[in-house]
């Protein structure tokens, strides 16, 4: 397959910059797969696992929101946070999951509840990705 340039940018660093042949990400409308020569395309991403082809195999990473932009020359993913499966701190994710669940149970205000729900989604996403690595 023809490779194309991919860049994944977070506020803290450039997480990935290099060639890949395929990525699979989840947008607000569902999963999309991007190959070389995709039409220009922009969509928002939700907290979900993202698959990136690196050295011939698909590697999985946990992505927390952001957006995806395909232009003729390259593909850019902008996100607040992304971690490879083997970088995830499972204990921390577990803790933040429990914390979020407790806050959701208390249900102090709708705002607080929504916030906790988002946190829970991110934690579950990280646990899901971390659990799948072998």
């Amino acid at each position, binding site marked *: 397959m023809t490779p194309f340039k991919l860049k994944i*940018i*977070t*506020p*803290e*660093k*450039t997480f990935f910059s290099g060639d890949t042949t395929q990525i699979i990400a989840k*947008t*607000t*409308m569902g999963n*999309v797969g991007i190959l070389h020569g995709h*039409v*220009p*395309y*922009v*969509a*928002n991403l939700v907290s979900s696992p993202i698959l990136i082809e690196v050295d011939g195999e698909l590697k999985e990473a946990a992505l927390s*929101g*952001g*957006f995806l*932009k*395909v*232009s*003729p020359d390259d593909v*850019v993913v*902008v996100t*607040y*946070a992304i971690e490879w499966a083997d970088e995830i701190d499972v204990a921390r994710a577990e803790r933040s999951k429990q914390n979020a669940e407790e806050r959701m149970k208390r249900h102090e205000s709708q*705002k607080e509840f929504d*916030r906790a729900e988002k*946190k829970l989604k*991110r934690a579950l996403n990280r646990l899901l990705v971390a659990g799948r690595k072998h």
Partner: protein
Amino acid sequence: MATANMKDVKRRIKSVESTKQITKAMQLVATSKMRRAKERAVAVQPFFETLFNAMCDISSDSNFTSVFTTKVEKKKTLMIVIAGDRGLAGGFNVNVLKKAAAKAEGLKQKGRTVSIMAIGKKAVEYFSKRDYNVTDSFSEIAEGLSMYGSMDIAEDIAARFKAGEFDSVDLIYTTFVSAITQEPCEMAILPVENLNSWTNTRHAAPIYDPSPEEVFEGMIPTYLCGLLYSAIVDSFASEQAARRAAMESASDNADEMIENLSLMYNRARQAQITQELTEISSASLNDSV
């Protein structure tokens, strides 16, 4: 007399020395914190540029409109004011807070209602003691600020803006010009302005999934989050730079004081010795007679 004076001077030298140790330590801490904050401020740049470019692209789409860009007559303003959590940083907090207060007064005179989101303990204290409507306050978040922390704030602002709680959002913080200059500055962040639309002319319009409006709206929290994050980090770097400069001059002053006091001490000591010698020699003169 001379002995009492010497004791006093000695005590003062000791006290100035211990103060100097503290200011010196604070200076070193501020220097290393400043360096780290500067690195973070630089690292966020590519993120923000890409984001802003993407937003410019969308806004150049022919039939694009969004509540976040539409200019209405501004009536209710939210001012986000970022100051430090601690004092002892020279004019850092005073400068930015004064600018914010002047701006708030100006807006009020134009007949707008102003609510304030205070970030940093000093900002919270300043505005809650005065006659301002402080709707949100965040203390002690700057140093260990994570993306999630600023994301929570950003999503909250976006939701409240959309609900019409306010129709413009201004940001006031201190920007890091250099290690010796930090300037308070202001920025209008909502509605989104200055989106230049030239970037997209080269390519065919991309597909926006599901629609330009929705993609743009989804980007708004990210945009606010990026802005807030970089402003808070920038302000934190400025605070550390200001503190470093203040502590450096404090240490220099302490050095000068120690020098003067030592001179005083040595003079007193010399005077005492001279006096003792005179006493001894005059006593021995008296004996020999």
